[in-house]
């Protein structure tokens, strides 16, 4: 299965780190977005995106709002969403799960964790 990722983060550093990790894991196809609103635009423009990795804390539209927007849109609702965030508090994780994120990683992450999570999500979908 050829995966095209949408990497959403307001931090250019984090976007590059995630993209580098994806390339190292053998996933060279990606699109970048700086916040939730930008991500929705990129999703409209790139119908071949089939995996989303998003941060939570972003100005404008947050990652959680993006998850809710995607899950509320029947045409893209089934896309896998991996949240990669600094928020490690139990209440936040539960809130993200209730919004139906596919999985959740707390920063700082290791390439191994990213690999495991992506593989687990692919396996489930």
């Amino acid at each position, binding site marked *: 299965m050829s995966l095209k990722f949408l990497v959403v*983060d*307001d*931090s*250019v*550093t*984090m976007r*590059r*780190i995630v993209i*580098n*990790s994806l390339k*190292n894991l053998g996933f060279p196809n990606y699109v970048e977005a700086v916040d939730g609103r930008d991500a929705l635009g990129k999703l409209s423009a790139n119908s071949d995106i089939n995996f989303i990795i998003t941060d*939570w*804390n*972003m*100005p404008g539209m*947050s990652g959680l709002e993006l998850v809710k927007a995607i899950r509320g849109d029947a045409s893209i609702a089934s896309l896998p969403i991996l949240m990669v*965030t*600094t*928020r*490690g*508090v*139990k209440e936040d*994780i*539960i809130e993200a*799960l209730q919004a139906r994120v596919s*999985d*959740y*990683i*707390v*920063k*700082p*992450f*290791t*390439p191994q*964790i990213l690999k495991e999570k992506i593989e687990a999500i692919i396996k489930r979908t």
Partner: protein
Amino acid sequence: MEEAKNLVSVFDKLNDLKSLFKFGEKIVPIIQSLVEFMKDIIPLLDTINTSIADSTSKMPIASNQINDVTNATEMATCQILDLVDDISNALASIETALITEKERQEKIELLAQSLNNALEGNTGLQEQLKELLELTKDRRILETVIPLIEAIREDSYKITMALQVQDITAQQLAAVNHLINSVHSKLSLIVADIEKSELNSEMGSSRSNSFDTPDGAHYDANASFTRGEGVQQKVDDLIRENNLRSNS
């Protein structure tokens, strides 16, 4: 009779007046002390007010400096990432070239070996071939160097991953900035209440123009770089627990 009544009334009033003077005698020193106290306290209040106003006016500068720090570290981090990318790409090219060279030398060794077999009995040529084989000893060096390059590439990747610290500290700085912004707003209101005229407009203008921090929180004040794998483990346990609950 009427005159007597009036006189009594006059005396009563005089008595009241006397009491008032007596009370005045007692109260005047207190009022004097109060006035003295006020004289002392007004410059002090003025100093406090000036100090608060001064501190308040400096807060946007501090906030903007924090933003500058965030921008500078992000820029520096990107430069480091560029360099690490360049190093990784160069190492990948070197590694590919060395692997190709290693494979080439392995072929030479195989060919030399079959030639050696074919030259069975011709010791002179076999000696020359042995010398040629000695020259392919580089293969063993390559076998040592290639894993080293792989290790350097791994290390440079670890540097990339460690640069997540920039995003995490940026969020902590954004939290501090938000805090400064809140304190600034409150202090500005206090100062404006004390001195409504000039300070109000001064504080008002600095409040509206000087802060670069956008409204709305988009940071995690608890962001931490020192988390171990335990935190991710807790997250995974929570996800598993939640999945079990939603499946049952």
